[in-house]
């Protein structure tokens, strides 16, 4: 990280103040206001102001180290902003007590990059965990029924329930992670790199599952990905982040915010280069940032 970081811009830039593509009347589920995050003096995100409306699927793209995962973890209050606020359904997550936050988190589903299944539990217990944790009065018969339903929804055979995470493939683990995220029927699902490390077929299976989930449930989704195929296929809005350390003071960190069809025609050259997978003059920019 560059220690000679530019001071954090407290004022949202012009691009960050852009209205939601869904128009001013759409009800936002998430509102991020002037969000900034520092780690050990390094600015990762600064001056981010955005809102995500109910039912929207937003893909967050950008190169490694640009703050996508930090942004996503802040949305579900796994990280606390250095400055700024994150409102979920009008409630400031950072003002909640731990008990209130735990209660609110029942409305979130989170699919981790490597699934983050509990090694010590079998697949059934992994998927049942959120129900047992958050609905302790639910009977075991109902738990069994719901777990089976969600395992079937993500296309997993019934015999997988008794296996442990280490005994199944990466693609299956991701599907179990999705079943676990869906089991409480959340309002917001956050996917962290859902197709990373998977073969093209399994990647597309995951993309189809994201679309299928959206058709089945009235869910808002945020998909953090490097995969342009995923972004184009599942999202109706794409936000492209750029590393703070490579920008001048006051420049917006979000280079693009719009429908995926507009990505190829973005005004910013860096967006077009990212979409096409072209290095362009990135090496020179990296050297400048390291200097």
């Amino acid at each position, binding site marked *: 990280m560059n220690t000679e970081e530019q001071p954090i811009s407290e004022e949202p830039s012009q691009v960050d103040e852009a209205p939601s593509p869904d128009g001013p009347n759409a009800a936002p589920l998430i509102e991020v206001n002037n969000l900034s995050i520092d780690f050990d*003096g390094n600015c990762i995100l600064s001056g981010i102001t955005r809102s995500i409306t109910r039912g929207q699927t937003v893909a967050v793209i950008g190169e490694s180290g640009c703050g996508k995962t930090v942004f996503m*973890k802040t949305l579900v209050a796994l990280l606390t902003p250095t400055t700024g606020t994150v409102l979920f359904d009008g409630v400031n997550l950072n003002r909640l007590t731990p008990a209130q936050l*735990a*209660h609110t988190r*029942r409305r979130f589903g989170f699919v*981790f990059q490597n699934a983050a299944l*509990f*090694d010590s539990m079998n697949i059934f217990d992994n998927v049942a965990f959120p129900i047992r944790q958050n609905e302790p009065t639910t009977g075991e018969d109902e738990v069994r029924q719901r777990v089976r339903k969600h395992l079937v929804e993500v296309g997993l055979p019934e015999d997988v329930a008794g296996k442990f995470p280490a005994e199944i493939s990466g693609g299956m683990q991701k599907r179990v992670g999705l079943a676990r995220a869906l089991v409480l029927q959340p309002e917001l699902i956050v996917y962290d790199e859902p197709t990373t490390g998977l073969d093209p077929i399994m990647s597309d299976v995951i993309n189809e599952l994201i679309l299928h989930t959206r058709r089945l449930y009235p869910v808002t989704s945020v998909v953090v990905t490097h995969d342009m195929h995923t972004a184009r296929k599942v999202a109706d809005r794409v936000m492209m982040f750029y590393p703070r350390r490579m920008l001048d003071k006051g420049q917006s960190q979000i280079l693009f915010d719009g429908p995926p069809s507009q990505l190829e025609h973005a005004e910013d050259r860096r967006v077009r280069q990212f979409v096409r997978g072209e290095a362009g003059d990135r090496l020179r920019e990296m050297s400048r940032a390291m200097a």
Partner: protein
Amino acid sequence: MSGDSSSIDRLSSFGSRLQSRLPHPLHAWIMQWGTAVVDGISSVGDLAYFTWQMLSWMFTRLPRRGTMMINFYQVGVLSLPVVALTGTFIGMVLAVQSYYQFQAIGLESRLGVVINTSLVRELGPVLAATMLAGRVGGAMAAVLGTMRVTEQIDALTTMGADPIHYLVVPRFLACLLLIPALTVMADFMGIVGGYFYSVIILGIDRAAYLHHSREGVVGFDLFSGIFKSFFFGGIIAIISCYRGFNCQPGAEGVGKAATAAFVYSFVLILAIDLFLNIVLDSIYFMIYPEGTMLF
């Protein structure tokens, strides 16, 4: 938390300014010590906050019985064989080490006093705690560290479970409540081992050995050993869980967390043992002014 980090940022920026002004060796020395002091204070504060969170959960809501029982089984039942085995050997080693000195002054029949007192007051609790730190503490740090690295702890949080409540409280209770049982087991097996070697192998008179052994060990000795073990169990759980929760990324991070958990636990066990021995000895001599009599 952001206040803490901004203070550390200010210190770092002060360090950078200092770097441009001071001659290199002095600057390096000050920076090293300054960083060590700031890190040390920050870690102690973190550890205290971690302990406070755990204790506040413990007194408000205990984890489910099933979660507790798994940890109790792993800490208590699975540690019994190794604690019993090492206890037996320590008792026999004490007999081997002490026999020739006692024989030289014709007091070999009083060997049991030394073996049993050493075991019950000192070696039993410390041995059980050391085995627990090695077998259970290292494993706790490694498991929790792996869970941190693979985002399983984050996953718990996103599902509305508090990781400290779910992962730390059961481990703390298991260590705290079961280490006295392990200590008693180490004491018992050590006494059996000492008796076996002294009477069966070395041929010391059985009746005299047992008679003097009974006279040498009082209830306070057993109490002090068990009393100390509660502190040892608590510190092993807190240090090991804290190291696991604050594990650095990667396999090396997990390995370092497991090693640090054992090393810090062991050093703290000995430090607490010294402090508690001073306190307990002063109480002991108030109750038994004549002390333990060999003759």
